[in-house]
């Protein structure tokens, strides 16, 4: 072997080693072993345009606040955090395409989730296929956690399955004489509402509360008069509605017209919407129950400073969606700090075995990424949405029961 042949062979060996090193670094589950410099990229696709653009905007702002705070404290793993954001226009197919692009083309280091069960379902499936950690700020439909994914984590205290927990607990705590004997269940046909209503119905039936009416309506329903009339004829003492958006206010408006006011009224999501009191008449909110993932007044660590920082940064108070995305960022950061490197499998394994303190309280997950807590039970009292349970987050010790009749 002459000198020229030896040098060619050495060069070939060096190239082979380099290729092997590159291959090892880019393989899923063990990225960035060499601790590269430059910003740490975190990819996400959000519905920044389309029908839920308003909700998404505050959620995006929650992410931006989290990233700015992390960067102000020196970043993650000593690297500044950079958000890589795509717009899916609330299209599940576009969401799937965006997350594929973020992983395979943009080669982001980490992922964060998008909004709604509709979009998080395909996004989390793409992440699972690519063995990437996926922390989602919303998407609490129980069906998302039955697919056997081990890399999916929901950054809220509970899902649709545990949504009824605090309210059922409160009903159970009532003396037998005050407990409702009859109940009616009305729900939108939506993955974030109808499964929760089914759980309500089963658990109240087990308590001996008789179902006198049950109805599921299409998401396109705008006129609730006939449903409200049927509910009024059934005269339930307890009324539960799986209300996703403006259907909550529309249904109450129909009940008001019929002057039917149940003793206890619970709606899943709608009452926490900013426009809800104006739509049904501010006085008529008194005593209405709802489930919430987050409260600005809850005394969890970091919550007050989050509210103050968000208000200062964006000039408005944070919404629940902003809090949820901020929480997702907190969960991701906790895992990265604990593991000390970007190792997708190790990050997921750590989250499966550790609790994370967040602005919505300590979060802990089962093997499916389903949080082991429950949502907050809120009630409108004197024009303010107060938290009545659990005790650790309660903002009042008073519970309005029974609900007063409709004003006006």
């Amino acid at each position, binding site marked *: 072997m002459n000198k020229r042949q030896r040098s060619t062979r050495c060069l070939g060996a060096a190239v082979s080693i380099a290729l092997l090193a590159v291959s090892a670094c880019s393989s899923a589950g063990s990225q960035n072993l060499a601790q590269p410099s430059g910003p740490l990229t975190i990819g996400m696709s959000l519905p920044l345009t389309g029908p839920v653009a308003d909700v998404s905007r505050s959620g995006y702002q929650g992410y931006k606040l989290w990233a700015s705070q992390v960067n102000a404290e020196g970043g993650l793993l000593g690297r500044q955090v950079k958000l890589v954001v795509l717009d899916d226009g609330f299209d599940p197919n576009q969401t799937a395409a965006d997350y594929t692009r973020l992983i395979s083309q943009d080669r982001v280091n980490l992922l964060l989730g998008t909004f709604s069960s509709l979009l998080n379902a395909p996004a989390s499936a793409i992440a699972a296929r690519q063995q990437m950690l996926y922390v989602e700020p919303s998407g609490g439909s129980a069906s998302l956690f039955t697919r056997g994914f081990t890399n999916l984590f929901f950054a809220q205290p509970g899902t649709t399955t545990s949504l009824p927990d605090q309210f059922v607990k409160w009903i159970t705590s009532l003396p037998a004489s005050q407990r409702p004997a009859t109940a009616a269940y009305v729900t939108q046909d939506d993955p974030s509402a109808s499964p929760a209503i089914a759980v309500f119905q089963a658990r109240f039936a087990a308590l001996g509360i008789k179902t006198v009416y049950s109805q599921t309506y299409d998401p396109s329903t705008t006129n609730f008069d006939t*449903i409200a009339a049927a509910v009024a004829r059934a005269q339930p003492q307890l009324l539960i509605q799986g209300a996703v958006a403006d259907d909550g206010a529309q249904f109450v408006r129909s009940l008001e017209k019929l002057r039917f006011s149940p003793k206890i009224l619970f709606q899943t999501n709608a009452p926490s919407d900013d*426009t809800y009191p104006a739509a049904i*008449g501010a006085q008529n909110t008194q005593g209405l129950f709802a489930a919430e993932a987050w409260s600005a007044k809850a005394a969890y660590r970091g919550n007050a400073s989050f509210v103050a920082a968000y208000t200062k940064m964006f000039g408005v108070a944070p919404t629940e969606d902003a809090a949820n995305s901020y929480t997702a960022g907190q969960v991701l950061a906790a895992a990265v700090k604990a593991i000390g490197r970007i190792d997708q499998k190790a990050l997921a394994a750590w989250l499966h075995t550790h609790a994370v303190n967040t602005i919505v309280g300590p979060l802990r997950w089962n093997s499916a990424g389903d949080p082991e807590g429950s949502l907050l039970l809120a009630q409108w009292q004197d024009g303010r949405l107060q938290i009545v349970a659990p005790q650790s987050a309660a903002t009042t010790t008073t519970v309005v029961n029974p609900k007063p009749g409709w004003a006006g």
Partner: protein
Amino acid sequence: MTELGQALVFGVLAGSVYGLMATGLTLTFGVMKIVNMAQGALLIFSAYLCYTLWARFGIDPLLGGFIVTVPLAVLGVVLYKLVIQRVQRIDQGLTIVATFALALIAEAAIALAWGPNPAAATPRYFNQAFRIGSLTVPRAQFYTCLLAVGVTLALQAILKRTWLGHAITAAAENPEGARLVGVEPARVGAWIFAIATASTAFGGAAISFLYQFTPDSQDVWIGLTLSVIVLGGLGSVPGAFAAGLLLGVAEAITSTYISVRWAAAVPTLPILVALLIRPQGLLARATRQDTGT
């Protein structure tokens, strides 16, 4: 019996609102053969104007509807002159694309002006009701029903008792014949568009206090109003009112006795039946099809 009576009351009241919302569309479709896909956007625009008059100045939305007719009539003429007339010269069929584009632009403009959050006016009567025996008659819907009857009668009077009305009717029924007696269908077009968009103001006023609405709520109403005018007969204002009542009652009966979920399919079923048995619609007369413009 009370159950049936209540369903009929709700059906008639809801149906009159449907008829009210479709009056503008039936004029443009029936007379000008233009499927105005911007009708839903005009309804929502009108709803926002009425809501703003109520929220800012305390003007009752029902009264606001009358006020809003003026700017909407002007808007109708502007849209006709700037867009519809020009597009018609190229290809009559392109008007559906042009009005669809207008609907998209209007939705974006409304979102920019009022934001994406739901709005709803709550005048004093919005959640009140009359009691007639065991039946409940919601006041807001009852007033809207009266408004729908009034608008239908007024438009019918304009169509039957004024020269403009005769010109519109002539242009609708026999464009070639209308030309022979000095009525140019294209010139009548601006008037029809003005009347059609002005009458949309009342439908928007009804939406403003009967429902919560957002800039994209037009999607809900365009399908329904198209169903109403096909069932009622193109160009027939009383037909639109009657078709609205029929759909409203059918929805209420279906919701009460079959399922709320089936109620969503109601608008399509009577249309299928009507198209098979009476294709010209409930109250429109069958006309010769060999006299097109």
